[in-house]
């Protein structure tokens, strides 16, 4: 058995890997949730600078949202494929997801560069501080997810750890969920 017997027990009925992944996500909810809560607090307080949400490109944000939604689809299809044992199809879908992640990061890089060249640096005002912090932390999670996904893709091609496709999928959906909330907060200004 790979790993201790403990890992293969399941008194709750939820396999250990999946249970652990959900606990990870629960704690991440507090980290991102804390940041988002602080953002909302300042925004609702009328802190100067938050009207700059109109300066972020809704098109770029919407395209990125579409990219992440599609990447969520591809990773769940990867999971459906590996459930049937189709290693190659799953491998392909995983790499589609990684590709989508790269597109996302590319668009973000383009956005960051444009904004910084226009003088909207992280220290300009509190809105931009939050913008770069929140999307930056999110991007780090995207990169981490992509790296782990790549490693899992090689594992499944060798024939083991099929269950991890579902787990990285759950993580990836969470990253998508965070972005679903960051998009309206950071890109839609008129309220």
């Amino acid at each position, binding site marked *: 058995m790979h790993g201790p017997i403990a890992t293969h027990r399941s008194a*709750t*009925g*939820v*396999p250990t890997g999946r*249970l652990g992944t*959900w*606990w990870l*996500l*629960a704690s991440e*909810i*507090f980290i991102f*949730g*804390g940041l988002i*809560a602080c953002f*909302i*607090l*300042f925004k*609702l*307080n009328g802190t100067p600078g938050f009207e700059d949400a109109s300066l972020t490109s*809704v098109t770029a944000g*919407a395209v990125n*949202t*579409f990219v992440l*939604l*599609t990447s*969520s*689809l591809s990773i*769940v*299809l990867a999971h*459906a494929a590996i*459930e049937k044992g189709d290693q190659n199809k799953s491998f392909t879908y995983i790499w589609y997801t990684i590709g989508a992640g790269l597109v996302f990061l590319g668009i973000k890089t383009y956005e960051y560069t444009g904004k910084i060249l226009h003088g909207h640096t992280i220290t300009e005002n509190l809105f931009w501080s939050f913008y770069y912090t929140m999307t930056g932390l999110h991007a780090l999670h995207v990169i981490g997810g992509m790296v782990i996904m790549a490693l899992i893709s090689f594992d499944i091609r060798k024939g083991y750890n099929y*269950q991890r496709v*579902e787990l990285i*999928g*759950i993580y990836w*959906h*969470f990253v*998508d*969920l965070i972005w*679903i*909330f960051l*998009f*309206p907060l950071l890109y*839609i200004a*008129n*309220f």
Partner: protein
Amino acid sequence: MSEAYAHPNYVKIWFWLVVLLLISVAGPMLEIPALTIITAFGIAVIKAFLVAANFMHLKFEKQIISFLLILALCLLGVFFFGVAPDIMMTDGDQWIDCIADKSCVEQRL
């Protein structure tokens, strides 16, 4: 995966997510604040629910996981509503229009 359940149609869910995305982008363009909130944020919540229930399989998962997540969100709510009065109310009954506070901001101290 030990549970045998019928998968949702993932592509169908994706399609609806994209439709909702388009609505949430179009809504704010009408520049009505209440509509913006409903379309931008309300739809975000619906999209989140669709992703969580279908892509993350929460619809088919043991209930304890959903319970855990709801609890986490409630605690975040406690944090938000506990902190909001302090961050969002800098003026008070006795201390209206804080001159010292505002002058600090103006002088960028």
